[in-house]
């Protein structure tokens, strides 16, 4: 360190440099190098853990893989055959429809309940912090725990939900095993898990709204509902947008809850693109990696489109 400090000021004298221009040019390349060196860990990380797996997945989806060629290499190039096969499969439209219903209904309820709770907790009453913390529990629990618990509660024969319904005279509902209810059941569980996330983000968004605006509005005689519609909701819009986008990406790829509760059944009634992709790749004794990868890529494209729409909307708003 000492040697460096002493050596540095000595340099210009030794080489008798004329002016600042040359010094600046000289320090150019090392500064660039420094920047790249700092960037390197991130770039290496991105290449290793994002680009390469994505490339592999695209490659998988374009080849005709069997168990033998998966292990020994040399899978024939299949072009878009895997995608065509996936589109032609009757399960595809079922899974796509289920994915859309699952995602939209989940988002609407997660956001609606999360916003209602956030407004409620924004009023600060005794124990509100404790209660708010308790609402985070679903988010903190491992998914395997919450999904298994929901599966037990919704069990047709011995579940507590049917026991309660039975107590008020409602017949047994086959929550997880009837084609009419299976999708609803997994949506209910998913909403329960997703509400805390919406609550936390929307709550912090509410805290960022200056209290003076509310004060001014109430002085002008605005009712609670008017204040919510004309102040809270518009000022919360950027936060809402990012909450919904994150929620969308998260909900599109939900797999564990559905797999643990219904395995996508009965007979495909709660199959989404995510569970179908897993089913194709790993759920049968003979894996169809190509088809599974194709469905996985379609999911990525769906999420990507949603992300692009978000960026587009945001930049348009900023331009205004």
């Amino acid at each position, binding site marked *: 360190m000492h040697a460096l400090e002493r050596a540095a000021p000595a340099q210009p004298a030794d080489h008798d440099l004329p002016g600042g221009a040359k010094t600046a040019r000289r320090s150019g390349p090392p500064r660039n190098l420094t920047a790249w060196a700092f960037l390197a*860990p991130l770039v290496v990380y991105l290449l290793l853990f994002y680009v390469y797996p994505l490339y592999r997945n695209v490659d998988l989806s374009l080849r005709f893989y069997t168990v033998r060629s998966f292990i020994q290499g040399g899978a024939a190039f299949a072009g878009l055959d895997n995608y065509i096969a996936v589109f032609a499969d009757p399960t595809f439209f079922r899974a796509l429809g289920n994915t859309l219903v699952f995602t939209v209904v989940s988002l609407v309820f997660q956001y609606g309940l999360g916003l209602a709770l956030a407004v409620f907790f924004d009023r600060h009453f005794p124990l509100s912090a404790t209660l708010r913390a308790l609402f985070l529990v679903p988010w903190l629990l491992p998914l395997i725990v919450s999904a298994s618990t929901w599966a037990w509660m919704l069990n047709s024969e011995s579940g507590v939900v049917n026991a309660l319904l039975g107590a008020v005279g409602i017949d047994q509902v086959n929550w997880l095993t009837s*084609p009419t209810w299976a999708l609803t059941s997994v949506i209910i569980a998913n909403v329960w898990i997703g509400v805390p996330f919406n609550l936390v983000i929307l709550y912090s968004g509410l805290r960022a709204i200056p209290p003076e605006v509310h004060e001014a509005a109430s002085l002008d005689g605005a009712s609670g509902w008017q204040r919510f519609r004309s102040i809270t909701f518009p000022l919360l819009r950027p936060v809402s947008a990012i909450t919904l986008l994150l929620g969308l990406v998260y909900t599109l790829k939900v797999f564990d809850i559905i797999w643990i509760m219904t395995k996508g059944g009965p007979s495909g009634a709660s199959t989404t693109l995510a569970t179908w992709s897993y089913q194709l790749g790993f759920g049968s*004794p003979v894996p169809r990696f190509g088809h599974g990868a194709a469905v996985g890529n379609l999911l990525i494209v769906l999420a990507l489109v949603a992300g692009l729409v978000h960026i587009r909307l945001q930049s348009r708003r900023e331009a205004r």
Partner: protein
Amino acid sequence: MTRSRLTAGLLALAVTASLAACSSSSPEPGAADGPLTLWDPYPQLAADSDWAKAIEACGSASGVRIERTSHDTTDLTNKVLLAAQQGAAPHVLVVDNPVVSTLAEGGVLATTEDLGLDTAAVEPNLLDAGKLDGKTYGVPIGANTLALYYNKAVLTGAGVDVASIRDWASLTAALDKVKQSGKKGITFSAVGTEEGSFQFLPWFWGSGAQLTDVASADAVSALTLWKDWLDRGYAPNSVIGNTQTTSWQEFATGEYAFAENGTWQLANAAKSGLDVGVLAIPGKSGGTAPAPTGGEFVTVPVQADKSRDATAKAVVTCLTSAENALTTDTALSYVSALPEVQAKQVAAKPELEVWVQAVKAAKGRTGDNLGTKYPRVSEPLWNAVQAALAGTKSPQQALTEAQAASAAK
């Protein structure tokens, strides 16, 4: 300023490089003096279990330390496929029997012929599950299969004599009596995975149907049997989502007269505090229905470096030998694949007689001349069972579509 920043940057680069280096410097699995790796699907058996001890003893006898890793059974198949792709398969692999032909087709497993393993003493119907194109790819460590557990108290309460149950009609009549006595009839697993097909097969084969034609009239009669049980309330609706474990939990409540379940539940049956008996699954018009054989094969994956094959062979021979089979099969609650050991098991525990008979009558799932085509039939089959039981399709329609789907693949 510039220099110290450069130093920091270089440091960051060095850390990245060393991280990358770390990930590639893991020890080579094939190293000649390293431990022998063994993978099994028994995570429930801890390091102090008899099974783990048997492995350790076989290691010492062969002069090598064995490193055992356990995975859940479906997980194991995926792990093995990935490991084989990376050339890092374990030296010894204990794997579920219907997977053997798939792995063999992928070129993952060595044949017993190449290894010089002797399989002459093994029951032929059990060994069949490990065969592909006339070659054998492993040695069964033991076998399990399905039968009907029954709750004696519930049957007595309903006035049912077990001896009267000889075919489907008498079984259904018994279920009716049980229902009228206020108890529940039968529970099984019809989940949308391989487990669902596994549980349906005794009824499927018991009807006389063959897996080569899943839409035959016999096959439809088997699915109709299950469907009727659900419709009449003899079986709970939860069977559609039940795994064999959750189905057993239902039976363990003591509310059910029957449960279709496997050999591996014997220990739990003893612990349940219920007075439980076991009955072979009846065929449609009498006799014992062929149940599918379950249980694992001990196999030796092909290695690029052949130097450990002899040691691996010694370990497989040791684990499957008659002396060790009694210990390992007792530890796993399996019926041995060797007739002489079966006799010892029955002598020690007479209630195993039903299971030994069931194992003798059992059929490999890859039988019916299916081989690696079995999974192509099994998946449409479990989907058909689910569709029919959930009421989205009639048994006939569901199975006709399953036949079309399995023929198309």
